[in-house]
């Protein structure tokens, strides 16, 4: 079948709603299992890092939150592009749903990072390249959310946010690279990421678990937000009214 | 079926779940004038913006010379002149400068003579160098209407062109419309005035408001 007809099927809110309904329990179960299991494993069973002591256990949420937060922005931009190019309504819904989730995860990454910084670096905040970039990523998310809220018209809001998300996505690599370059100019000798080499494989396994769990959690939330938004948008259709009022 | 004008087929538009119009179909050919009527809030402005290509929130088809609008935007724009609610003029620039820019944007160059004669027609000779903010409501509207005479086009879409225009002015504008139509132009307009128009014209009534 042609691309457009596949898109048509995937883009149909009704089809998506029903399909995602079947996926939902699995996502919820798996993500909770991996997140909770990985966390317990990481908190209680893994030996501490020889340099950082027990504070390193924050890694099991810090790293997954950071990674997913980054990936989410790109996903949002891609959804925006799909919406603009193929005029697929579902993509707009997905894009709108990602923004608050991504912002929350970015905030979590910032928060856990800051808390981790106190015992390791002796300060809550450092204008380190990676940290600065995440902060800017957070601003980018806030921009998309604020722009969406500012519009009264939903379709115009979606298109405008798509443009912004794409422009932002084009800029992210440039921002990262320039912040990195900036930091390397100023880098004080005392502070640096200790480097991946120190991670022992026994520490790595729970990390893999929570990382996968966080991705699944993101997927779960995405479906929940998207489905609520679909209901809202399609509220005048018979199928939605049947679902809600059970006829 | 080579129709030479604007053809609207099964047009549907809604706002916040209230249907403004649905299954709206009509045709506007060269040499015709159509008045879109309806009470406040019935969707006249919405319809005109759709037909001008400014709004894309509609279902149904709009054809220009037999082809869909979305396919031949450029050709259509070449022949369309839309004057909306807004004044479309910079307050600090004079009528002359404003019209010069209006022409340039349409790709029309070097026609000050035209502009002067247009300003004369709308009764603004003597005001052509005065900044527009110091003109009255009706005079500003007239500057905007002067575009009818500087920009050659085949289809005029006018949203309440008589707003703020005095009685003598209204009669004049009706005469212009009449002249344009008899030269083979097509006009689509809304107004709450009772049109006194020499030729025949049809009325598309958007009727009362529907709640959906």
């Amino acid at each position, binding site marked *: 079948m042609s691309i457009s007809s596949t898109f048509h099927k995937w883009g149909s809110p009704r089809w998506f709603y029903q399909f995602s309904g079947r996926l939902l329990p699995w996502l919820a179960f798996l993500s909770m299992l991996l997140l909770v299991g990985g966390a317990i494993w990481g908190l209680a069973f893994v030996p501490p890092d020889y340099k950082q002591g027990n504070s390193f256990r924050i890694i099991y949420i810090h790293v997954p939150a950071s990674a997913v937060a980054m990936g989410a922005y790109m996903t949002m931009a891609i959804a925006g592009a799909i919406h603009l190019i193929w005029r697929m309504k579902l993509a707009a819904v997905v894009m709108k749903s990602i923004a608050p989730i991504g912002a929350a995860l970015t905030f979590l990454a910032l928060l856990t990072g800051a808390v981790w910084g106190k015992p390791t670096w002796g300060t809550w905040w450092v204008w380190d390249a990676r940290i600065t970039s995440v902060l800017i990523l957070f601003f980018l998310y806030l921009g998309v959310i604020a722009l969406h809220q500012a519009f009264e018209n939903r379709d115009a809001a979606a298109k405008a946010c798509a443009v912004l998300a794409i422009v932002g996505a084009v800029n992210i690599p440039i921002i990262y690279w320039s912040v990195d370059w900036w930091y390397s100019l100023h880098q004080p000798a005392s502070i640096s990421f200790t480097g991946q080499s120190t991670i022992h494989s026994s520490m790595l396994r729970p990390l893999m678990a929570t990382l996968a769990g966080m991705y699944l959690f993101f997927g779960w939330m995405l479906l929940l937000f998207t489905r609520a938004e679909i209901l809202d948008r399609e509220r005048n259709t018979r199928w939605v009214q049947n679902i809600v009022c059970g006829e | 079926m080579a129709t030479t004008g604007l053809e609207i087929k099964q047009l549907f538009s809604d706002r916040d779940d209230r249907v403004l119009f649905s299954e709206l179909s009509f045709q506007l050919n060269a040499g015709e004038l159509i008045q879109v009527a309806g009470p406040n809030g019935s969707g006249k402005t919405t319809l005109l913006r759709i037909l001008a290509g400014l709004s894309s929130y509609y279902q149904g088809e709009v054809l220009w010379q037999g082809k869909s609008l979305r396919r031949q935007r450029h050709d259509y724009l070449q022949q369309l002149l839309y004057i909306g609610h807004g004044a479309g003029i*910079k307050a600090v620039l004079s009528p002359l400068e404003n019209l010069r820019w209006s022409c340039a944007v349409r790709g029309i160059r070097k026609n000050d003579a035209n502009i002067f004669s247009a300003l004369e027609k709308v009764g603004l000779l003597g005001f052509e160098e005065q900044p527009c903010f110091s003109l009255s409501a009706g005079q500003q509207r007239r500057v905007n209407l002067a575009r009818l005479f500087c920009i050659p086009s085949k289809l005029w879409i006018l949203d309440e062109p008589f707003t703020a225009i005095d009685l003598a002015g209204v009669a004049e504008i009706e005469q212009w419309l009449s002249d344009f139509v008899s030269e083979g132009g097509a006009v689509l307009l809304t107004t709450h005035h009772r049109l006194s128009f020499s030729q025949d014209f049809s009325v598309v009534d958007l009727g009362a408001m529907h709640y959906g």
Partner: protein
Amino acid sequence: MADPGLISLVYAVLRRDVVASLRRGNEWSNPLVFFVMVCSLFPLGIGPQADRLAELAPGILWVVALLASLLASDSVFRGDFDDASLEQMLLSPQPLYPQVLAKTLAHWLMTGLPLSLLSPLLGGLLHLPVEGMLPLMASLILGTCALSFVGAIGAALTVGLRKGGLLLSLIVLPLYVPVLIFGSSAVKTAIEGGVYLPQLAMLGVFFLVATALAPLAISGALRISLDQ
């Protein structure tokens, strides 16, 4: 590209905007005054020690210039939206790209350029060493033009909204970061006696890319803003 029609179109739009802006006066003088005033607030907030100010001058000057450009960029399309000129631009059979390019350039001519030319004066006020003056001006000229184009994207997205103002900042500021980094770094490197050409070259690249690509995004954004 060298179509005489397009060139005269660009010229007409540029001319109208420059004339309107000159006649209003505020539009070009305000960013300038803002730049001057905010720069002179810093000694009051931070303290008057010359050596400390000198050290901070590149950063402060660049951040404030960036803010001035940002705040000014709210007005690129605002007026044209309010008086429905934008409608006319969109309904013109001419392509939007050159019109938008011309408008943004006109805006930069009236805001970024005067600001860049004035910057050495403020450098003096903040005790910026003489070696920094030329790179400051050069980096601001290239940088503010890139900023104008990026800012115009945000302006186009928010022009249809009641109260754009600070929303624009929110959208656009993160995108300004690379320009700020390379701009202030050029000046700092120059002061420390280093080679600042690479930074200027980077700014040049930003400038070219922004000039070429931003009008596309702006055109799209304007269409969206008007279609509500």
